[in-house]
């Protein structure tokens, strides 16, 4: 968080007089030990008397005394705007947190609290919270708290509870001091008595005083003659001359004419020139105001503004508006980059390069780096197309649910939970759904096993990039997790999944999970996760029916370019198998037997292999002595646990018994 303090407004440049001494002293005290003395400090005065200057000076001084302090300056309007924006974005809490972490809060122009009930209660709450935490609040207004119309009594007492101090109009001496300092700053020199004459004019505030000084500086610059105390009054219209009256017939000219005879005409032109000078001065000096506004605005948003400040240092730079526009453009680009990066890697978005338009190219590089490093989450495996999924009465429900989900992703069944025993094709269907979803434009489908999900999270925690990990999944347009029961006992992953689930579901993004059994029968899952899994549709895949088996067999055989006799398919399809995977195992056994004999795949061979009349040759050809299952290079059972690899030597045992 950066403060929007104008560097020009410091205690050094603040002219102290009788009218504001108390306020300045209080400001110094507060800056030296924030939160300790007057809290809140409430400064009020009329317009143009230095409230903002003093407020920012407190900020500067506090920052200087303790550079680590978190200092925030903003006007009430900005505060209101920020509040509304955060409420609209659903980030009301973030807004509150933001201000509760401020060490010194400087709020300008709180008189605008009138008729803003909700802001009043917000400010009341914030004031209480900050005070309780020993943090400093300084507020300014153009009137004391009780005079702010329609202000909550509690807030009045809160705001008046620290120190309420006012600043009056500067007295003559202060006015002279201000004029001296300002003319020095502008490098203008005047004859003795000139500034005193200006200071004698009754002015309501310091800004008017500055206006008068500007006119003198402009006049002197054009006329190449220095002004004396006499001419000051004429130039400033302080004497009898009223404001350029248009009333007909008033004798305005004779004074000038009568005074100098022949020179009178010159005076007339001189007056004209002075008037034009002032008007032109105001017109072309308007760029300063515009630059100043831009600086305040962008500084307020936390951007560095050296480029604009450099403009202010110059006398009359060309194409000011272009420079401001170019600056604004750069800031917009930074904003876009920051937003993009924030989505990919929230931590990286906090870098200061995204706040400095002078380092735009660095920011581009940083964004490119993040972009390059932002690998999408793991996607579905291409090995499981939907077309290859055998459909039959046993899995009809699940498949049609999947198709419905694909038609209207995220809207119809969300989440879709596929349950069924191992080997029934849950993973296949899950990946198939993922593949179909991934066809969509700009689709980012996260499809992975729950184990991989857990491992990734652990790696992210280890690498301190959980934010990056989260952002990666939050971008997903669909999340498909295989074997959700593996979450059992993984509390942190459940927590993350819970949040991710809610976020994605809110955005109507499709969620698909698989589990070996109905979620509510799974142990080790938190209730909130289970209830969410149950919230969509739980579709079961049953043991494969004949139709499915036939389809699977036909597909597998076709893949191996084998044209088996129909009787083989019938025979295998009729054999009792509880899963597709074991069916595949059967087929592989038969196939390897056929390969060993170098003969065709026939029903007879299958019967021979599967019903125990297997030939010894085929076993030898397999090269293994097995428990009856043949491990084939084609796949099937790969788990070491299910295969007995090392048989004891039967011969040893025989000898043992013989003894």
């Amino acid at each position, binding site marked *: 968080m950066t403060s929007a303090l104008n560097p020009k407004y410091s205690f050094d440049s603040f002219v102290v007089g009788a009218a504001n001494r108390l306020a300045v002293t209080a400001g110094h005290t507060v800056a030296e030990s924030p939160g300790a003395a007057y809290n809140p400090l409430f400064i009020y005065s009329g317009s143009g008397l230095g409230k903002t200057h003093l407020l920012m000076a407190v900020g500067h001084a506090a920052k200087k005394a303790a550079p680590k302090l978190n200092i925030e300056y903003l006007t009430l309007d900005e505060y209101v705007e920020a509040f509304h924006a955060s409420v609209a974005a659903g980030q009301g809490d973030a807004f509150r947190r933001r201000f509760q972490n401020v060490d010194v809060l400087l709020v300008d122009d709180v008189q605008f609290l009138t008729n803003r009930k909700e802001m009043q209660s917000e400010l009341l709450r914030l004031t209480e919270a900050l005070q309780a935490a020993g943090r400093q609040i300084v507020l300014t207004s153009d009137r004391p708290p009780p005079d702010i119309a329609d202000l909550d009594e509690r807030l009045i007492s809160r705001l008046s509870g620290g120190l309420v101090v006012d600043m009056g109009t500067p007295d003559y001496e202060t006015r002279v001091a201000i004029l001296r300092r300002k003319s020095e700053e502008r490098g203008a020199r005047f004859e003795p008595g000139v500034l005193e004459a200006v200071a004698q004019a009754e002015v309501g505030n310091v800004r008017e005083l500055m206006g008068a000084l500007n006119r003198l500086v*402009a006049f002197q*610059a*054009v006329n190449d003659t220095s002004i004396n105390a006499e001419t000051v009054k004429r130039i400033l219209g302080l004497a009898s001359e009223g404001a*350029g009256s*248009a009333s*007909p*017939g008033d004798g*305005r*000219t004779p004074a000038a004419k009568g005074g100098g005879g022949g020179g009178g*005409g*010159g005076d*007339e*032109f001189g*007056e*004209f*020139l002075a*008037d*034009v*000078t002032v*008007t*032109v*001065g*105001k*017109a*072309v*000096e*308007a*760029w300063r105001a*515009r630059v100043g506004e831009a600086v305040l605005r962008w500084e307020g948003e936390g951007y560095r503004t050296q480029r604009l400040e450099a403009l202010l240092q110059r*006398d*009359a730079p*060309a*194409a*000011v*508006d272009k420079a401001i526009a170019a600056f604004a453009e750069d800031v917009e680009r930074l904003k876009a980059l920051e937003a993009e990066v924030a989505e990919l890697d929230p931590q990286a978005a906090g870098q200061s390069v995204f706040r400095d338009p002078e380092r735009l190219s660095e920011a581009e590089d940083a964004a490119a780096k993040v972009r390059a490093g932002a690998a999408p989450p793991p996607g579905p495996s291409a090995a499981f197309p939907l077309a290859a999924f055998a459909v039959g009465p046993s899995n009809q429900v699940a498949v049609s649910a999947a198709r419905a989900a694909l038609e209207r992703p995220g809207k119809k069944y969300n989440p879709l939970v596929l349950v069924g025993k191992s080997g029934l094709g849950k993973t296949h269907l899950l990946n198939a759904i993922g593949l179909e979803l991934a066809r969509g434009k700009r689709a980012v489908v996260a499809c992975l096993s729950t184990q991989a999900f857990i491992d990734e999270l652990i790696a992210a925690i280890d690498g301190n990039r959980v934010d990056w990990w989260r952002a990666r999944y939050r971008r997903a347009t669909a999340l498909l997790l295989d074997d959700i029961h593996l979450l059992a006992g993984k509390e942190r992953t459940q927590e993350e999944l819970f949040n991710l689930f809610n976020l994605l579901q809110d955005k109507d993004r499709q969620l698909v999970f698989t589990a070996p059994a109905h979620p509510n029968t799974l142990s080790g899952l938190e209730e909130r996760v289970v209830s969410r899994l149950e919230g969509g549709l739980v579709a079961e895949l049953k043991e494969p029916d004949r139709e499915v088996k036939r389809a699977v067999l036909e597909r597998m055989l076709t893949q191996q370019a084998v044209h088996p006799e129909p009787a083989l398919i019938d025979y295998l399809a009729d054999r009792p198998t509880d899963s597709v995977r074991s069916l595949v195992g059967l087929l592989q056994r038969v196939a390897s037997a056929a390969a060993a004999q170098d003969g065709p795949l026939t029903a007879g061979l299958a019967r021979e292999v599967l019903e125990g009349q297997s030939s010894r040759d085929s076993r030898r050809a397999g090269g293994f002595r097995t428990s009856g299952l043949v491990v084939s290079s084609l796949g099937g059972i790969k788990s070491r646990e299910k295969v007995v690899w090392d048989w004891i030597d039967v011969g040893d045992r025989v000898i043992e018994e013989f003894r």
Partner: protein
Amino acid sequence: MSLVNFTTREITCKIVYYGPGRSGKTTNLHYIYGRVPESRRGRMVSLATQTDRTLFFDFLPIDLGQISGFSTRFQLYTVPGQVYYNATRRLVLQGADGVVFVGDSQARQLDENLESLQNLQSNLLEHGVDIRTIPLVLQYNKQDLPLELILSPADLDDALNFRGVPSFSADALHGKGVFETLKSISELVLKKLAAGTAA
């Protein structure tokens, strides 16, 4: 209208003195010419007939020098007042930043004043300019004539100044009200300039 040029650092204002024939437009310019120091003024161009009536236009450039780093120039023009020179008037009016309407205070000239004012409006419209938006001031000239011949500034305001723009009573021959008028129109033009560049 590019009044303020930040690149070349110039401010140029074109001010046109408009009004019926013989109302004193050229006289205004002559008086100004006489009061501007030689170093500040350019050559006054006056294209007049033998009877000293403005035939085409008068042109008086005034160089105010560097103001806030801008070289500032005023260009003062008059138009021929006679009805039949309308094409010339329209031409001179082109690109004007401000208009001074010099009215003849004589009671018998009231219709001419009104006619000329309407002519100004329609000529501005030809250039796509709305008379309500262009800086305009009125000057009631010849207020030095015997009271029985002229209308009072208040009467003239009633008759001519229905937009409530600044108005000045003047005696251009002797210079009364001339610079007040010029100041007023300059201020209006420059203020518009400030507003224009800020936008």
